[in-house]
């Protein structure tokens, strides 16, 4: 029943988004971000500089006009092609819907951009990590922050921290598992480059190495084909997939993780990006005032509890 409600909710969002594809509708979809822009701009300055100084905005290195942007006056944000729910709704990041789209607009507003000044481009995973200069200011597509990656690119502070979850079909024996030990004998799969894959290899350590797929869609096909028993996703993706794309599958359980195993999503920038302090400051402010949690609540959680498998 829970799933059904979510499904209906998501479908109505999709229908609403499909209702009009023109520019007018897109700006209407983000009304909450635009009106406050001016206030955010003016309040930002007194926060960082002593009262009474006249050159408040000029001295602020994070003021829009002082930021070293790829294209002056606009924040160029990259995301995946296609971008998936619940991170971006309807593969349209400009609508402000979906967690990552909403976070980017909230952050841009904090930094003093208007919604119009946020320009989206698309990059593949590989283009984004290749050495050399990038075409984007930030790239947002659930990049997990790891030490090794941090050596070749820059990451913002995390905008979301999540757990991993195990998804399987109800008729599989694996749904009876209650601990990580119970999972060892099964064939597991995950998408390449995800913390989910690392979690299987490093924490679960199954008897057969996990199968590795290019996309979650391929992992789902392999599950359908009976080639693997279960897939590991990050929790929000697991919620979305079991609600919409694989209604017959369910979340067997969330997977226990220590602080350092937790999956932290960061915004990707080119190495030694001068933007990083400003991006970080905006995200920290959003976290402190509870906006990040509220957006996560809005886009990523689902009513009800799921069991957590024991260590």
């Amino acid at each position, binding site marked *: 029943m829970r799933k059904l409600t979510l499904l209906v909710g998501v479908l109505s969002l999709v229908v609403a988004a499909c209702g009009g594809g023109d520019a007018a509708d897109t700006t209407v979809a983000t009304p909450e971000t635009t009106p406050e822009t001016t206030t955010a701009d003016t309040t930002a300055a007194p926060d960082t500089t002593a009262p009474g100084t006249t050159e408040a905005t000029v001295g602020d290195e994070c003021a829009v006009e002082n930021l070293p942007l790829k294209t002056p006056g606009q924040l160029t944000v990259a995301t995946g092609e296609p971008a998936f729910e619940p991170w971006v709704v309807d593969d349209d990041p400009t609508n402000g819907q979906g967690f990552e789209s909403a976070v980017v607009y909230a952050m841009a507003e904090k930094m003093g951009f208007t919604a119009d000044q946020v320009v989206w481009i698309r990059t593949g995973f590989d283009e984004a990590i290749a050495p*050399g200069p990038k075409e984007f200011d930030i790239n947002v597509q659930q990049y997990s922050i790891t030490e*090794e990656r941090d050596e*070749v*690119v820059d990451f913002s502070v995390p905008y979301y921290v999540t757990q991993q979850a195990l998804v399987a079909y109800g008729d599989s024996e694996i749904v009876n598992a209650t601990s990580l030990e119970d999972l060892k004998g099964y064939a597991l799969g995950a998408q390449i480059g995800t913390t989910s894959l690392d979690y299987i290899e490093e924490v679960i350590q199954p008897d057969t*190495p996990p199968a*590795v797929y290019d996309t979650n869609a*391929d992992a789902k096909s392999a599950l359908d*084909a009976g*080639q693997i028993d279960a897939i590991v996703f990050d929790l929000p993706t697991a919620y979305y997939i079991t609600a919409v794309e694989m209604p017959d599958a369910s979340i067997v359980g969330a997977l226990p993780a220590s602080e350092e195993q937790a999956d932290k999503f960061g915004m990707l920038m080119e190495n030694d990006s001068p933007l990083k302090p400003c991006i970080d400051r905006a995200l920290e402010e959003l976290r402190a005032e509870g906006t990040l949690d509220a957006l996560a609540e809005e886009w990523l959680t689902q009513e009800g509890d799921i069991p957590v498998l024991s260590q």
Partner: protein
Amino acid sequence: MNWPSAPSAFAARRDPGNGSRRRAREEGARGALIAFVSSVVFFGLALWAILTSEAWPQVQRQFFNPEAFVEVWPAVLSGFWLDIRMFLGAEVLILFFALVVAMARSLRGPAFFPIRALAVVFIDLIRGVPLILLILILGFGVPALDLPGVPKSPMFWGIAALVISYSAYTAEVYRAGIDSVPESQRMSARSLGLTQVQTLRYVLVPQAIRNVIPALLNGFVSLQKDVSLIFVLGVREGVREAQIFNARTFNYTGYIVAAILFLVVSIPVARFTDWYTERDRRRRQAMSA
């Protein structure tokens, strides 16, 4: 490049005197020297441009990283060993099935029309479909049908897709070989009372295969790399292990490891092909002489 025999041969034809032959040899030596110096300058400049470029340290760290090399080597090597085994298994099946298809297509006479038509449709259809699609359809689609007794293994269906695809191409190589055998051979065999199938089996195919061995070896090298495409089904072969490492660390050194391993296998095959072709050419010249 230096071709000392060619200029001297030309010179000899124009003027068969001893002096000009010596002059030609000197020209050849000078050519070799120029080739050497220009090569050093050219490659040296290219290398210098790369190594002094501002971004080189980062490129080196991401593509030619010794630590990453050591770290990723065991995984890529074991994945590559799987590639080799899959490749050998697939190649044997391909050589067999392709020959069957080629023979079916080479049968003459109205009675064999349905068989010929089937072979043509098979070849046209399979050659027109991207290999990756064939792998996905067979690898994910067929097992999802859940038919009793049908294997579900992604490796089984991945290899099946490769065998089907490569059989279509290789059948055309065989057919070119069969067509290259003079028509008189077929007619002589038929007039001796051999059936169509016997004619193919004992007269045409043995000569055809000999004609197309270099082309078959070329397909060998191609298959040896394409076999890694099975990774889309989740099979962890060599290139996939390199990708996994790349996605995890944003470091590309694993691909370099994979490339080296593939070269270690494909270069000897290429050299062997050249050697075999040359030997075969010489033998035929000797026979016709």
